[in-house]
């Protein structure tokens, strides 16, 4: 029985040797074109593998280093000193105990007469219990435990040209520098501060006199538990034993979770980049396969005429696709693993945890397979056309292309494709809604571009006027001629421009948040930890430097005890309010007016005739009110250093947090918190070009506990961090560019033969090569410009949505990205199109015309 009569032909055909032989033979003259297809897969899979490997490495790094990242089995943090009996009790629960006190202070370098804000860490005990501290010289850390001295960060020493043995002044105490820290002990705070760290003995810290004056100190107890002890169980026991202590406790498991959360956005961005790169590669695949099938229509029609079934014809080209996609995916996997190793080697210092460049086999395997499957699905869409190629095409010259109308067979492919993309999105971000939104967004972009392309063909048909110059008329007419590739061209290039510009615009949204010019009128020097009795003195010193005290805000630390009468513990169980809101320490203030960066959105500002009493009126920031599900009139109970205070929400405020003014979630009327312990923050503004050194030196001499934070230095630090992150992101975004190159080639290859034949025909009729090139330039420029416009409009819309829903900033567009995107997309379309059409002037017309026949 002839094979073509057999039922279930596709599977039979796929395993038949002839199908594979025919696939091989058929590729003979097409291999360089199929290489484009292979390149697209390599680029897409490489991006996917490298990004997911990086994520896997980060996760593995966090999982394996959690203990070393914390340095202890349990860390307890308090904002007040631990009492002796508390220390004794906690010590009894573990094998070893260490103590640490940390706060910001000015460090004075007498030799260079300069002061620098540092994060002082006074340590006692063998902390860290896990992981090692490295110093230069190596014995410096050991000496710190047995003799007076200080260990500084290498950058601090270099900045002030300080040497080992040189003396520095911390508060009232002069200490010799013992060495530089190379690998510091784990930090008690979740994230490192902006100030460099300085390490001293806890006993020396007492002698500085700073501890008695500062209100911003953190007190830590680190425990090493006995073998087999359950850190989480002991944490619960301590929480039960000290329910009102307000301690924060952290185990290695918690830190792993915290770090994981901190990396969440980074991973989310990586996930989007990975999918974008893969989809770009896959569009390139679809374009290349579409071009390939278009060229093979006559051969397929002949095969059909000679008795080849639709299934078997389809199988031949499916086999070709698989045979090229599989090694392409393998090469992409290898390339991606190489990129993964390269990114780790280049950006090891910028990553939040130490990771080695070990291959992530499981991630690489999973993503290679997924990438391969997605690329094959994209390839199947144009391959389905083969089934509709009629054998009657053999009877007419220049066999007609297949009917391009949609077929019911394409829908299962679209469904599988959507499912695969959702699965991949979930690999990058485990939230269903976000994964679905991402894939739905891509689908919507696809549909909009397809609609635009159809609209363009319609318009081009009606827009052309007989009075137009011939070259222009011909160039525009090419857009709507039969067998035009307008739809595919717009889809490929438009989606490419859309995805690339969206990534660039998102990057700019983040960068814009720290733009310096917008802070021209804001304070740029903060004086913190000013005790109430020091406010006058500090203000006098500021004024003596011919500077203005812009703001003077008292700060009082407090926590939420209950919301509308429901205790925090109960609310935590319900889970309706974010945990960080319920657990955070609010630094609140009191004043009688709104500042320039906030405005009232509900309720009334405090009545001037306000009299103290319970409940105390409170003005709440609107976003935190949303998180707490409260409004004007609702009551909160606050814990101010152990004292409960009832507060009723009198108003809600909208605050512009992007300005560096003194802003707070909670503001009380003057007098309400007068007796609560706290400190003041004063702000001033240094004129451009003036250093804060002189003021800092004057302050450190008179008020050593007062810390000066120079915003310009902080911004430099932030900028340094962001530059590192941006470098990593730029490399990753570069992958998407890599994946976009085959798209261009795929889009341009489509219809290339048709254009060449038409061009040669025009040349035969007497057109010069430059006239033919002009027609092609008009056509490619029109298509490129429209693809760019459509892609950029979509990118602008995506940027708008990302700004509002993700980055929570005012949506603005970076015109440079849009202009650059437009110019590059259009330029590449024209340059690439002309490059691929160069055969018109280099081939003798006769050869091409014979071939066309």
């Amino acid at each position, binding site marked *: 029985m*002839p094979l073509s009569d057999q039922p279930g032909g596709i599977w039979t055909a796929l395993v038949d040797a*002839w199908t594979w032989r025919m696939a091989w033979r058929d590729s003979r003259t097409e291999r360089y074109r199929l290489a484009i297809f292979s390149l697209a897969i390599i680029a897409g899979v490489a991006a996917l593998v490298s990004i997911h490997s990086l994520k896997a490495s980060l996760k593995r790094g966090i999982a394996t280093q959690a203990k070393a990242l914390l340095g202890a089995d349990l860390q307890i943090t308090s904002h007040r000193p631990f009492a002796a009996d508390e220390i004794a009790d906690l010590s009894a629960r573990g094998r070893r105990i260490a103590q640490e006190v940390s706060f910001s202070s000015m460090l004075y370098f007498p030799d260079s007469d300069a002061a620098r804000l540092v994060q002082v860490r006074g340590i006692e005990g063998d902390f860290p219990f896990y992981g090692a501290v490295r110093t230069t010289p190596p014995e410096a850390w050991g000496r710190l435990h047995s003799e007076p001295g200080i260990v500084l960060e290498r950058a601090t020493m270099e900045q002030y040209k300080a040497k080992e043995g040189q003396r520095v002044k911390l508060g009232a105490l002069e200490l010799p520098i013992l060495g530089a820290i190379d690998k510091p002990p784990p930090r008690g705070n979740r994230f490192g501060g902006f100030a460099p760290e300085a390490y001293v003995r806890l006993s020396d810290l007492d002698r500085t006199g700073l501890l008695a004056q500062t209100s911003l100190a953190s007190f830590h107890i680190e425990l090493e538990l006995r073998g087999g002890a359950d850190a989480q169980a002991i944490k619960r026991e301590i929480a039960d034993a000290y329910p009102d202590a307000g301690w924060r406790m952290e185990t290695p498991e918690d830190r792993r979770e915290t770090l994981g959360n901190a990396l969440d956005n980074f991973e989310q961005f990586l996930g989007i980049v990975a999918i974008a790169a893969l989809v770009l590669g896959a569009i390139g695949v679809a374009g290349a396969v579409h071009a390939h099938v278009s060229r093979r229509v006559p051969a397929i029609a*002949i095969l059909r005429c*000679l008795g080849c079934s639709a299934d078997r014809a389809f199988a031949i080209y499916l086999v070709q696709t698989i045979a090229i996609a599989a090694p392409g995916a393998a090469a992409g996997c290898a390339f991606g693993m190489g990129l993964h190793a390269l990114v780790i080697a280049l950006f090891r210092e910028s990553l939040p945890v130490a990771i080695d460049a070990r291959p992530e086999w499981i991630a690489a395997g999973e993503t290679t397979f997924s990438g391969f499957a997605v690329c094959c699905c994209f390839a199947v869409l144009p391959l389905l056309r083969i089934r509709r190629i009629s*054998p009657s095409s053999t*009877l007419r010259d220049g066999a007609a292309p297949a009917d391009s109308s949609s077929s019911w067979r394409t829908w299962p492919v679209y469904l599988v494709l959507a499912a695969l993309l959702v699965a991949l999105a979930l690999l990058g971000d485990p939230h269903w809604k976000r994964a679905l939104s991402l894939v739905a967004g891509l689908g919507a972009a696809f549909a909009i571009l397809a609609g635009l392309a159809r609209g363009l063909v319609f318009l081009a048909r009606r827009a052309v006027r007989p009075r137009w110059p011939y070259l222009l008329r011909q160039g525009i007419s090419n857009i709507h001629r039969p067998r035009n590739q307008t739809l595919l061209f717009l889809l490929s290039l438009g989606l490419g421009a859309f995805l690339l510009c969206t990534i660039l615009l998102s990057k700019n949204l983040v960068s814009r948040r720290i733009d310096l010019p917008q802070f021209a009128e804001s304070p740029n020097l903060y004086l913190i930890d000013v005790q109430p009795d020091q406010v006058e003195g500090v203000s006098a010193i500021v004024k003596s430097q011919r500077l203005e005290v812009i703001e003077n805000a008292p700060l009082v630390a407090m926590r939420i005890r209950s919301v509308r009468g429901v205790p925090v513990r109960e609310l935590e169980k319900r889970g309706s309010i974010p945990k960080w809101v319920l657990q955070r320490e609010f630094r609140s203030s009191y004043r009688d007016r709104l500042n320039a960066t906030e405005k009232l959105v509900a309720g009334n500002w405090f009545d001037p005739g306000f009299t103290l009493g319970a409940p105390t009126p409170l003005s709440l920031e609107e976003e935190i009110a949303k998180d707490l599900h409260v409004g004007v009139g609702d009551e909160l109970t606050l814990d101010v250093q152990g004292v409960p205070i009832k507060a009723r929400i009198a108003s809600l405020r909208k605050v512009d947090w992007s300005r560096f003014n003194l802003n707070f979630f909670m503001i009380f009327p003057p007098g309400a918190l007068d007796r609560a312990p706290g400190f003041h923050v004063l702000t001033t503004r240094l004129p451009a070009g003036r250093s804060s050194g002189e003021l800092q030196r004057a302050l450190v001499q008179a008020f050593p506990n007062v810390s000066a934070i120079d915003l310009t230095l902080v911004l430099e630090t932030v900028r340094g961090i962001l530059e590192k992150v941006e470098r990593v992101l730029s490399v990753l975004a570069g992958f998407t560019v890599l994946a976009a190159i085959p798209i261009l080639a795929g889009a341009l290859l489509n219809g290339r033969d048709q254009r060449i034949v038409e061009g040669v025909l025009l040349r035969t009729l007497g057109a010069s090569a430059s006239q033919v090139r002009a027609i092609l330039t008009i056509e490619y420029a029109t298509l490129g410009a429209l693809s760019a416009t459509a892609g950029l409009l979509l990118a602008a819309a995506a940027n708008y949505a990302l700004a509002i829903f993700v980055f929570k900033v005012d949506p603005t567009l970076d015109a440079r990205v849009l202009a650059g995107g437009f110019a590059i997309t259009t330029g590449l379309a024209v340059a690439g199109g002309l490059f691929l059409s160069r055969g018109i002037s280099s081939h003798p017309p006769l050869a091409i015309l014979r071939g066309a026949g």
Partner: protein
Amino acid sequence: MPGILEVRHLCKTYESAGRALTVLHGIDFSLRSGDSCAIVGPSGSGKTTLLGLCAGLDNATSGSISLDGRLLENLDEDGRASLRNRLAGFVFQSFQLIPTLTAIENVLVPLELRGQRGGEPEAARLLVQVGLADRLHHYPLQLSGGEQQRVALARAFINRPKILFADEPTGNLDAETSAPIVEMLFGLNREAGTALVLVTHDPTLARRARRIVTMRGGSIVGEQENAAL
């Protein structure tokens, strides 16, 4: 002799620019096994459309076609493809060789499609017979028009067809190149006892067939038998 091809009340209508265009009107036509028939007529008279429908390359709008007793309208496209593979051979004006296959590979395709192996000696014999002994492993682009059509002839006869459809087989060839092709076409037709349906503008070629059917405006307007044959 039994009928290999039976056409009854055949109509074909295309939709073009929103209008229905009928290109064949109620065609009735039959052909016996081993017989030969030339379809002639001016351009646009429906000759090639009729040939395509008879070969099962397209669907009729109405009417019936029976090929070796099988009604084409009862078969789907794959069923018709299978029938073509077993019963029919084709020769086209533009040769229609697969450009990525060598001459012998092109000839072997119909056998390979039915899963038949070991056809190389027969393919080589046919190519030698059509005068291409030294061109077996050449690609179509390396062959002249006449040589390409000879490869097409060899391919048309490799599966020992019961019926051969030829659409302007000499349309792209000059008189000198055409003559041996025509001789081979009819020679092979005679040797294999194959029925032949030939569409042509060439009166000389048409006169080589036993019957001549004349078409105009989508209808058969005349039919004559070649008494000499």
